[in-house]
Structures are given as structure tokens and as C-alpha cells.
């Protein structure tokens, strides 16, 4: 086969061009740490990385949402704890004054205390956290209860999205905590108790003990529900956090290049380029023309 001058030079030129391209690619990867910088670098990885990036962003938002919900529910639980304590105080007062040993004066004092507890209950029912009335359902910009104890909030339990398709409950409406519209709702019972104490009605006070215990049971059920909600929010938050972490790892695997591989590739590419340059310098330029 004839080997012509142009063929020799073209061949070396081609090899040098390819070697330079390889060095450029290796430098880009080593410099940026990225194996996939544009879709054509690896279409399958680029497409998968896009999906994972989207999942990660939504999961990060979900982590924030779950933290917000958890904080809100923990605050709600704390309020419920105060409500339960106040209700227990009212129950204790009723129990003390349901016996014959309590005097009329004792019952009058107790009536005053029960009215104070009732006022405290309305305040607790209208607890506002970060600009939201926690027991007002979807109407959380306005108080949940009127001063007379009427529930004026929304009876729904608010939900939040933590992950696409995974919503968690973010609160409990006041009617489920204090009762609303029923004869044994907390405010009515406290009103009746105060009236019975004022009237020095021992049997009336004793009769209301059962209603107070019904309210205590409702309170415990509400706290239990909020406890479950807190657990759910934490679990969902952990799932979102895990999703975010998994997505980050997956994105790393898909588009990043490990430093050792990048450095090795760069060394290899530079070695190949040096070889190509050395070959170019070795092309016999003299030959017979040069008289050698």
C-alpha cells in the first residue's frame, strides 16, 4: 500500500484532534465533578436526574411542611394539656363541693373559680399560634369560639401535603375538643356547675360530675388524636427527609463523576495527547527529499 505524505499528516492531525478532545472532556469532568452536564452526555442519566431533582425539591418542601405541622401540633397538644389541667381543676372543685362537708361559702368561692376556669377555657379555645387560631379549622384567621362558648370555627381538620400523594392532618377543630352545640359541651357544663355552686345545690353539683368526666374523656380522645397526628407528621417528615436524601444520592450517582476516576481519566487523556504530539514530532520530514 502506498503511504503518501498527506495521509501521514492527516492521520497524525486526526489523532491529535481526538486526543485534545479527550483531554478537554476529562478536564471538564475533573474541574466540575460532573459527568453529565448536558442531556447528550448521557440522555438516560439526564432524564432520570431530572425526575430525581424534582422529587428532591418537593421532598425538601415536604420536610419544611412536616416540621411546621409538627410544631403546630405540639403547640396544640400543649394547649390541650392546659385545657385538661383546667378541666381537672373544675372536676376537683365539683368533687369537693359535691359532699355535705362543703359549706355554702365554699360553694360560692368555688363558683367564682369555675367561672374563671370557663373564661380561661374560652381563651384556650381561641389560642392563636403564629397568626392562626389553632381550633378554628379552615377559618383559622378568626377565633374558634364566641365569648358565650359557641363554636364559630370550621369543623374540618386541616391537612398539609408532605410528599406528593401523602397528606397529613395539621390540627383538630375546637368542636371535637370542647364539644359544640351539645348539652354536655364544656362551656355549658361549666356554666351549669357555676350556677349549681352559686345555688348551693349539692346534688346538682354531684350530677354534673358525670358531664365533667365526659368532657375529660373527650379531651383525652382529642389529645390522643393529636398525638397520632404528631406521629404521622414525624413519620411523613422522616419519609420526606429520606426521599430527599435518596434523591440526592441518586442524582450524585447519575451525573457526578468520582474524583479518582476523573483524575485517572485526565492523566490518561493527557498521556495520549503527549504521545500524539510526540508522534507528530517524529514524522520524517527530510526523507529522500532532504537527501538523507
Amino acid at each position, binding site marked *: *500500500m*502506498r*503511504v*503518501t*505524505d*498527506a*495521509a501521514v499528516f*492527516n*492521520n497524525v492531525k*486526526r489523532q491529535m484532534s481526538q486526543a485534545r478532545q479527550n483531554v478537554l472532556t476529562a478536564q471538564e469532568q475533573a474541574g466540575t465533578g460532573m459527568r453529565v*452536564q*448536558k*442531556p*447528550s*452526555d*448521557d*440522555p*438516560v442519566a*439526564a*432524564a*432520570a*436526574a*431530572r*425526575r430525581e*431533582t*424534582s422529587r428532591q*425539591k*418537593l421532598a*425538601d*418542601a*415536604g420536610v*419544611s*411542611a412536616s416540621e*411546621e*405541622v409538627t410544631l403546630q401540633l405540639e403547640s396544640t397538644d400543649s394547649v390541650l394539656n392546659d385545657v385538661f389541667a383546667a378541666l381537672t381543676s373544675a372536676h376537683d372543685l365539683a368533687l369537693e363541693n359535691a359532699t355535705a362537708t362543703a359549706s355554702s361559702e365554699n360553694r360560692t368561692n368555688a363558683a367564682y373559680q369555675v367561672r374563671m376556669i370557663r373564661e380561661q377555657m374560652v381563651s384556650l379555645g381561641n389560642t392563636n399560634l403564629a*397568626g*392562626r387560631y389553632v381550633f*378554628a379549622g*379552615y*377559618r*383559622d*384567621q378568626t377565633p374558634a369560639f364566641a365569648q358565650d362558648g359557641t363554636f364559630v370555627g*370550621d369543623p374540618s381538620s*386541616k*391537612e*398539609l*401535603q408532605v410528599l*406528593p*400523594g401523602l*397528606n397529613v392532618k395539621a390540627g383538630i377543630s375546637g368542636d371535637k375538643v370542647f364539644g359544640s352545640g351539645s348539652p354536655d359541651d364544656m362551656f355549658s357544663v361549666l356554666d351549669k356547675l357555676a350556677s349549681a355552686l352559686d345555688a348551693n345545690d349539692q346534688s346538682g353539683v354531684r350530677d354534673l360530675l358525670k358531664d365533667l368526666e365526659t368532657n375529660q374523656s373527650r379531651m383525652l380522645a382529642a389529645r390522643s388524636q393529636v398525638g397520632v397526628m404528631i406521629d404521622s407528621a414525624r413519620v411523613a417528615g422522616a419519609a420526606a427527609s429520606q426521599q430527599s436524601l435518596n434523591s440526592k444520592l441518586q442524582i450524585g450517582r447519575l451525573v457526578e463523576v468520582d474524583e479518582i476516576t476523573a483524575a485517572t481519566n485526565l492523566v490518561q487523556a493527557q498521556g495520549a495527547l503527549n504521545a500524539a504530539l510526540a508522534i507528530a514530532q517524529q514524522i520524517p520530514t527530510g*526523507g*529522500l*527529499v532532504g537527501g538523507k
Partner: protein
Amino acid sequence: MSIASILNNGVKGMNATQMATQAASTNISNAATVGYTRRSTAILPDQSLIAKSGPKRVVEPFIERRLLGAKSGSGEASAQATAVRVLDNVFAEGDGSLGSALDAFQVSMANLGARPEDTATRQQVLSTAGNLAAAFGNASAQLKTAKAEANEAVSAGLAQVNDRLHQIAGLGTEIQKAEINGEEASELRDQRDLLIGEVAERVPVTVLDQGNGQISLMLGGSYQLVTPDGKVGELSAVAGEGGNLRIQKTVAGAKVDVTEQVKSGSVGGALKARAGALTEAGNKLDQLASDITKAYNTAHSAGYGTDGISGRNLFAEQVSVSGSAENFAVSSDVLDQPSHIAAATSASTTPSDNRNALALAAVASAPIAVGGQTVMEALSSLIGYSGSIVQNAQQSESFSSGALQQVESLRENVSGVSSDEEMVEMMKYQRAYQASLKVISVADQMMSDLLNIRG
């Protein structure tokens, strides 16, 4: 046999070896000339043919045909790769990219679910929706520009082809005249082959040698671009369906559509990229924009703003799928009106009701796109599609470039110049020249001796 005929033989030998040496020296001096075909001399026993026709170009017609095909293939692949490379930019990740804009928009919807009463959160929804519109607009504009550039490449390619066709026709006439007069026209033939190669890089052509110095240059084997009598059939581009160009050739005064013949070359590559990948990517982008518009509008119009009004669109309604990406915009129903964002499911529960905000956030995971995909899956598929198009085009460019180099190497093997080989040839003819001189010297001596005998 006379002494005079011996002298004559010596002269013939000197002439022949001079011509051969001249050919070798021409070859050496043109070793690096682009398009140069080496000359060769074949000294026949009577040494007469050389003097008549001179050195011949060393070409292998089969390789020349393959070279034209390889140039058309390489031109096509290179033009396609150049045209579709924009898809990498359109769908690359980064600030302002379609992917990040869609992420931010979906996150803002999730945030709206957490804080529907917060004006800043509602404003964030509008901002991210606006950024999404900008990203769609930017992607659409880039594709539009790429399509326009592909059309410009077609028009520019045809102008270059037409220019070369006229040069080829002119050279054919010159070659014919020169060779009729017995002159050597290798240089003109080299020039013509170079021009034919440049045409082949742009449109697929075949050459029919007429044997008289003239050629017939055919487009795709069917239409004459240069006739044997030196006439040129120019190519022109006209607007076709969907903004794609059609190629026409004037035949007997009438325009004939020859687009189907232009399947390769850089013009063919640009046509394919414009009508194929770029249009397809644009259609998919439009479909995605349309699907997003419909899905979010359906969910949004079912909800209520804080002003208690329902039935508003989030994005401007599209007349058709085509153009949806370019015209993607935040609806005037909600533009600059955070309170119009419909997060609630009833007028009585605004502004804290987040149930419609949750429905809007749920669109992100709903199978609302083509093939039952979510929005992000559809975008991901589009990114995968675009990446594959660019990757395949680049690989094709690399393969066809390699194929061209292979054929060029083959041609070099036959028609290229080897300096060493030519130097050996020169040494050989130098020796032959010296021998011929010696013949003349001997004949002269013989003549002289003969005259001395008579004297």
C-alpha cells in the same frame, strides 16, 4: 539501422525522461496542495506516446464515486449535529431552565398548601408561574431560532452549490477546448473535482463522464445540475408546510420539486433536522405546555380566591396545542393579584382553606401528560429524547467523518503524492537521462569515427 536513428533514439529518450522528471517534480511541489491528483508517466517502448499526451492524472473512478458519497454523508451528519445541538441548551439543567422553573413552581404550590393565607406565599406562586412562562418562552425561542438557522443553512448551502455549478460548467468547457487542442488539462480537472466535492458536501451528486472533457452532474441520480453542454440547473428554496423549506430546480423553464432527491449533504442534513428533531422537540414542548395549562387551569378554576370568586384560570388559555410553549403565560385572571390565587374550596373558608391548594399541588403527581405521565415525567422524557437526538447526531457525525477519512485515505493511496516515491522516480529518470546522453555521445563518436575514416 543508421547512426542517425541511434541519435534520434537518444533524443527521444531524453525528451521522455525530461517529461517524466517534470511530472515527478510537479508531484513533489504539490504534495500538500488540496485536491491535487498526482501525475504519472508511462514510457512506452517507442517513447512516442508520452510526447503526445503528457503525464496522466492517477485516479480511480470507483474511489472518486465513493468519495462523493462519503462527503455527502459527512456533510449531512455534520449539519444535523450542528442544528440539533441547540437541544442540549434548551433542556440543560441550571438557573432559569425549564426543569428548575417547573420545580420552583411545584414547590410554590406545595408551600401554598402550607400557608394559603400568606400573601407572600401567594405572590411566590405568581412569581414562579411567571418564571415557568419565561422558561417555556425561552425554550420555544431557542427552538424557533434553531429552526430559522437550519433554513438559513439550507438557503446558504444552495447559494454555494449554485455558485460552484457555474464554475464546474465553465471548467468543463475549458477542459474540452484544451484537450481537443492536445493540451494537458489535469490542473483544470483537479479544480473541477474539488468543486464537485464541495457540491457533494452540500447535496448528493453523481458524475457521468462524457469522455470529451465534459461531465453531466446529476442531483441524486435523477436531475441534471450541469449538462454536458455546460448548462446549469440552479437549485432554489421555497417555503413549505410548517415553515420547512422545499428545494426546487428549474427544468425547461418550470420549477420542479426535488426535495426528495436532497437526502444527504449539509443541505439535506439541515432539512432533516428542521423537519425532524427540531420540529418534534417543539411539538413535544408545546404538548407539555398545553398539558400543564389545562391541568392547572382545571384545578385552579374549581377553587376560590380570597375575594370569594371562583372560575379563574391560572395560565392563559391556549387556542391550540401548537404554539402553547411560545404563548405560555400567567392568566390575566390572576396576574399581579395574589388574592386571586384559588387556594380554597369555598368562599366561606378563605383565606385559610388550603384544600384547593392541595388539589393544585397534587397536579404534580397526577398523570396529566401524554401517555399517562406526570408533568415531570413528561419533561424528563423530553430531556431524554433531546439528549438521545443530540448524542445520536454527534455519533453519526463522528462515524461519517471517520468514513470520509477512510475513503480519503483510500484516495490518497491512489492519487496522493509520496515524496519518497517521487524522489526515487526522479533518480530513475535521471539515470535514464544520463543513459540517453551517453547514447548520443556514443552515436556522435561513431559518426566522428566514420568521418575520420573517409578523411
